[in-house]
């Protein structure tokens, strides 16, 4: 129970047993979090007889890297990577530009009924993705964009979360800098890119990464809007790899799973400061 106390003094005499207990809990939490990931990574390197064995091989002995080439050959992973990359990078770039312009407008430009418009914008956050599924599919179908990059990207372009965060941040920028820029005769676009953008860098990076990771992981929309293997993104491609290999070949399926997870994991470990800040934004308000 003492572990539940946030402010318990930590160097109390006789706290040795308590600290040992705390460390045991810490290790347990770490094991629960990372154990399945280790099981995935190690199994992806096992031969099939090792995978289908009991008791299990905790550490793969002869590493079978060919699970990865099996997966790569069974499904066009190069295309999956390309599609995921295009969808998340191009999609993020467009969404971010739209969000930046929009946030700037709300902070630095006048417009009648601006407040109501902003509420209207926030209202879009109330619309669950499931409500938009069928209509968006019909819209994209009508545009002839099914199974194209445009179709994959377009419905995700509207930005509420990003616009909101960027606006909140821009509101904190010192007015004098803006006024100085205006007096210098800088136009709004110039002010945005020369003054506001550099001053909002951390927030822009946060929004960009969070939006990009969300797009990378998106599942239901690519599942619906793609119909050929060469247009699938990684998460949907993984599903088809599983159908294709069936459970008789877990090695290749797990290798495919690693390929989907690894890029995000790397980005996360490098940029975790931004990601955590972005995803936990709004708490404590």
């Amino acid at each position, binding site marked *: 129970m003492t572990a539940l106390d946030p*402010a318990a003094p930590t160097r109390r005499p006789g706290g040795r047993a308590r600290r040992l207990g705390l460390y045991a809990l810490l290790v347990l939490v770490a094991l629960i979090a990372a154990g399945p990931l280790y099981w995935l990574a190690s199994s992806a390197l096992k031969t099939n007889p090792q995978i289908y064995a009991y008791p299990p091989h905790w550490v793969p002995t002869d590493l079978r890297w060919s699970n990865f080439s099996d997966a790569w050959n069974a499904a066009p992973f190069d295309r999956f990577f390309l599609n995921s990359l295009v969808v998340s990078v191009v999609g993020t770039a467009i969404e971010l530009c739209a969000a930046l312009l929009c946030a*700037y407008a709300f902070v630095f430009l006048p417009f009648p009924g601006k407040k109501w418009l902003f509420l209207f914008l926030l209202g879009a956050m109330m619309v669950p993705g499931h409500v938009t599924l069928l209509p968006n599919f019909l819209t994209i179908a009508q545009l002839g964009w099914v199974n194209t990059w445009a179709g994959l990207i377009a419905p995700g*372009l509207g930005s509420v979360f990003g616009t909101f965060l960027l606006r909140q941040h821009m509101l904190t920028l010192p007015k004098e800098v803006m006024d100085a820029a205006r007096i210098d005769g800088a136009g*709004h676009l110039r002010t945005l890119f020369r003054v506001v953008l550099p001053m909002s860098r951390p927030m822009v990076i946060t929004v960009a990464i969070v939006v990009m990771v969300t797009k990378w992981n998106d599942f239901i929309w690519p599942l619906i809007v793609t119909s050929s293997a060469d247009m699938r993104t990684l998460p949907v491609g993984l599903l088809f790899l599983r159908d294709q290999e069936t459970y008789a070949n877990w090695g290749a399926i797990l290798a495919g799973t690693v390929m989907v997870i690894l890029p995000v994991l790397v980005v996360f*470990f490098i940029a975790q400061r931004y990601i955590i800040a972005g995803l936990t934004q709004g708490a404590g308000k």
Partner: protein
Amino acid sequence: MSAIDDAGRRLRARRRRRDYLLFAAFAAPNFLFLLLFAYWPVVYNGYLSLTDWDMISPAKDFVGLGNYTDLLTDPDFRATLWTTVVFVVGIVAGGLVLGLATALLLNQRLRGRDVVRTLTFAPYVLSGAAVGTLWLFVFDPNYGLIRPLMAPLGLTAPAMMTDSKWALTGLVLVYLWKNIGFVAVVYLAGLQGLPREVYEAAALDGAGPWTRLRRITLPLLSPVTFFLLVTCTISTFQAFDVLAVMTGGGPGTSTSTLSWFIYDQGFRAFDAGRSAAGAMIMFVVLLLITAGQARYLERKVHYQ
């Protein structure tokens, strides 16, 4: 009214008009996307929910509220709603309790806690499809991780994903694994903002750790809890990817949540009207939850 005044006013008016136009131009792309892909779909989905359409034939038959009365009198749909409630409550309540416990642990001055914090948060950013695939393997009763873990306890690993007694529990566990890090980090930020003096005073009064947790920490954290409650509830209602990959609503209908139902009716059974009606019901439920949040916050502000 002097000429100078007039010219000044005209100049200001022109500048204002230019600014309005500029606002419109800047805000237009984002608004266009949102109108086309967020607001318009609500209207169109509402219309679809009033029709009977198999998505193959050209005709959409108007059936009024038929789909809604059909759904609300259908025992299976009621079962779906109940499954959704169990699923959401399991994940949200479990997530809050375990997340808070993790946060309290990570708030201790322990070596390596930053690494552990990173590790627990990592699953939250991973693709649900990949997480689902990974856990299918972990849950495999023959070759998965659970068999060797349960064997020493003398237990046989259940077929988590193909046993309708276990499937929902299994899904809840996976979503907990994925979400706890997020809850913990949000709570951790809250914990670190708590005033130390209150605790010191309480310790002097002889309040034990359990009392301090109940009487001080939890009340002070209540805004954070509330934020988490609402965001987690909304996102769990819509949870789809892990579920789709792991159980596809089955076995039987044991993991068929509203989110799965909408997809299943729309894109597998091609009953556009039922799917759309299900989606509208979800929309209303989420609106009510959000409205409830707004009212609560209002009251809280008033109270203070």
